């Protein structure tokens, strides 16, 4: 195995592009190193990117925040600005692993690991987060929603990697929330999850809504019918009933050791309901 610390994004892209064997990128390493130790993967090339420019920085940009790909969960969690703007994104990231893992784990690593159960992804999707990708042809931006394509798979082309995530600005009276179900209280993988992002008008009527569910399909799913159920309401019982029905209809989970199809579907609806109520309260709504 070769370990390389390239001195620029360009060189990193070239190294990745030229590599013929198994390649892994090291940001936080909380997936890669565990997989190596468990002998699930033996990379031929390990590329360390966390020292490159901007990788460990959170910068204010056009009312939103650009978060470097090697910013840890602990650093994100202590950033007052991101917490105030996108609390659901922060709480999703902070649910990953233990305090020790939080010192290394990154949102981009979580995204690129490609797990349908990735805790940081649903709230990034409902936030409309944008991933900045570097590759042999330079940089491009795509929605985070378009990055995962299936378990363990992403849409990134050969030689490409993500250098930052952009969380956009948002209006007043808006907020988000993320919830997951795990059999324990921490140190676990989501059996189902839901993120909700809401914008309210001055009367507490929902003007914009996004609902994403995790661990119930091959990738995180945005549920448009669930958004429609909330828009124009103040999350009354009828709206919530429709939200739950829309979420349950959008689930196509698997039966496995972590949960049954019925359980995942039912709890995804419950979590979406509860996350919507939290986001609504955070956005200043009173019901």
């Amino acid at each position: 195995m070769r370990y390389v610390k390239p001195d620029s994004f360009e060189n990193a892209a070239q190294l990745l592009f030229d590599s013929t064997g198994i390649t892994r990128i090291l940001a936080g390493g909380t997936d890669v190193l565990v997989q190596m130790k468990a002998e699930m993967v033996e990379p031929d090339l390990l590329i360390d990117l966390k020292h490159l420019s901007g990788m460990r920085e959170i910068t204010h940009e056009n009312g939103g925040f650009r978060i470097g790909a090697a910013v840890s969960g602990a650093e994100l969690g202590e950033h007052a600005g991101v917490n105030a703007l996108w609390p659901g994104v922060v709480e999703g990231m902070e649910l990953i692993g233990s305090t020790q893992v939080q010192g290394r784990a990154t949102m981009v690593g979580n995204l690129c690991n490609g797990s349908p159960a990735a805790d940081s992804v649903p709230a990034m999707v409902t936030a409309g987060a944008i991933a900045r990708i570097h590759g042999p042809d330079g940089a491009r931006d795509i929605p985070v929603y378009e990055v995962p394509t299936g378990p363990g798979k992403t849409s990134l082309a050969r030689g490409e990697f993500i250098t930052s995530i952009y969380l956009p600005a948002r209006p007043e009276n808006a907020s988000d929330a993320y919830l997951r179900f795990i059999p324990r209280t921490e140190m676990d993988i989501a059996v189902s999850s839901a993120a909700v992002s809401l914008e309210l008008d001055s009367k507490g009527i929902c003007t914009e809504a996004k609902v994403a569910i995790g661990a119930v399909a091959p990738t995180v799913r945005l549920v448009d019918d669930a958004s429609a159920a909330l828009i124009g309401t103040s999350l009354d019982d009828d709206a919530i009933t429709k939200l739950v029905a829309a979420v349950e209809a959008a689930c196509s989970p698997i039966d496995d050791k972590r949960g049954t199809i019925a359980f995942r579907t039912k709890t995804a609806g419950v979590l979406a309901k509860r996350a919507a109520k939290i986001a609504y309260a955070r956005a200043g709504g009173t019901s």
Partner: protein
Amino acid sequence: MALDTPKRDFKIVGTRVPRPDGIDKVTGKAAYGADITATGMLHGRILRSPHAHARIISIDTSAAEAAEGVKAIVTSADFATPDDAGIRDIRDNCLALDKVLYDGHAIAAVAATSKSAAKAAIRLIRVEYEILPHVTDVDAAMKPDAPIVQSGRAFESVPAGMSQNVHSHVEFGHGDLDAGFANADKIIERTFKTAATHQGYIEPQACMANLGADGRGELWCCTQGQYMVRENCAAILGIEASQLRVTSSEIGGGFGGKTTTFIEPVALALSRKSGKPVKIVMTREEVFRATGPTVSTSMDVKIGMKNDGRITAARAELRYQGGAFPNHTVEFGAQAAFAAYDLAAVQTLGWGVMTNRPKEVAYRAPGAPTAIYAVESVVDELCQQLNLDPLDVRLLNAARKGTLSAYGPTFNEIGLVATLEAAKNHPHYTAPLGENQGRGLSCGFWFNFGGNTCVSLNLNSDGTVGVVEGNPDIGGSRASISMMAAEELGIPYDKVRTVIADTTSLGFNDVTDGSRVTFAVGLATIEAARAAKNEMCARVAKLWGIDTDAVQWEDGSVKPAGPNAGEHAPMSIADIAAIADETGGPIAGHHEVNADGAGVSFGVHLVDTEVDPETGATTVLRYTVFQDAGKAVHPDYVEGQMQGGAVQGIGWALNEEYIYGDDGLLQNASLLDYRVPVASDLPNIETVILEIPNPGHPYGVRGVGETPIVPPLAAISNAVSRAAGIRLTELPMSPPRILHAITQRRDG
């Protein structure tokens, strides 16, 4: 050995002195199984079966032998044939004989100059298999047409015509069951199932073996019993016990799981073949796939009760699978099931069953938690249906001194009634409950054990004392034993140091199991101290020129017994030790015993849970453990045992399980998907220690290590069933299972 006196004022016993191993453990200095290295050491690695059940047609090691760095490869052909059938099973579990019997069963092992060379070589071993049908469920394995795990292993007690997987049958009880059930106002009969669980010790098994060409061996390993390891390994390697010295490392948990051998004979065989020291450290995945979890069970319980709560008859039928080899766990379960009750008519039947799973090993009170879970669940449901207080019903039916126990013996002094009364009088029992909350309780019982024990106590020339004992310290025994030695000698605790001997330094000691060490080693330590005191009295009498019975021991000194003995200044231990060379040489005391009188143990657990009706998630809100410790030598450690048992029981009740797929392979061989509780899952576990002296120990000590894992399963199931409004009959009560039960209740 009898209790000295029912009431005694202890000076050291009962205090909370610093633990002697504490600083080493928190600074990382303590040497565990994997922490030792030797010059020229090789790394061992084991090839394991990818199949649940297969015949081994051939093993081709030629390519692996030719690989760089490989110094030895062993298979079952490198082992001897022990006389003892039980040790032959251990051998065949260490390296498969002609069939692999479960996913993860060891087949061959490599010793190489590096870990990576050993790993690469393992992949070069070619095994040809004939895959056989498999069975992993206990009820399926009992069916007459089930795939046969092993033939010809059934004991005579098993009736003809059953599957050959059924290897044992036991029955206990007394009284007229039919009359008892006919006399009942209410009868409930239920079937229960429980999943296999793992002890969850933090430290994976690890060892380093050095077996030279002269046939003399040294073995360092993480174990609950170095003598057991020596007996097993000597028999499996075909060497004499005297030729193998086994030293136990510091141990990172065992809970019964380290009362056998998995890797030690393999490392010794590799060392013998390579002529080099060989170290083997199991991975966590290997620990799950190929060490010993507990049994999984299927059980029927039927209990009849009068309207006033008196039990008229009780019957249990237990079916336990313990993996691919015979085991006796169901016998313990069948004996323990109704131990907390004074019953006129009771019967328990037990069936031991083999399946294509790893060989079961003890896990704290083996066999009892599951049986008592089933019994205490039915008792709770009867209380619900008859609208009776569950503590009053247990008090009404409680076993006490003079009760003919359900498994045969008549009880002596036992602490059950006092423990139940303590629970009833505790504020927890009457604290208010909220919506979706339920309170559960359960009694628990364990036999406790004494066993073979040797202790030497050496008086140093400066008056300090060294105690040498032969049981790995798994629950604070070095502290407790030092405390009992100090108490008996009348010297401060910090003047005593207790060490764990290797197998050549003391006679045979039984494994650290059966909650035996504080009881039995403590008893032998007290006797060894008394022998040393007698010797010190004799030395002083000699010095003073008077008869031995003219001196007496008092407050850590030898004094004249009375005015007729003459005027002599008392001599302390330090005074006597300083001139020992002038009075006859070094002074020591020792004691060897096969201790009995361990005294049975009872506990009661009280737990409040809240169940989320929308997700099936359970929160444990409050938990209180009541247990009779006889005499708590070091209360911190006793509380730790009580809390630890409760926590392991919470995991067993709610989430822990071995999950086998239809392919017979273990699906969750990691601590991610084998869910032991994490700290944030738990409330503070409150403890109430009762002290009803054990008549069989000079200080009244009872073992406390195992009873605490017995009540949690039923206590939590009873709490969850009350919170969820539906009786749950299968463990673990994982959220999908609870949500399914709630949904079924709502749908009628």
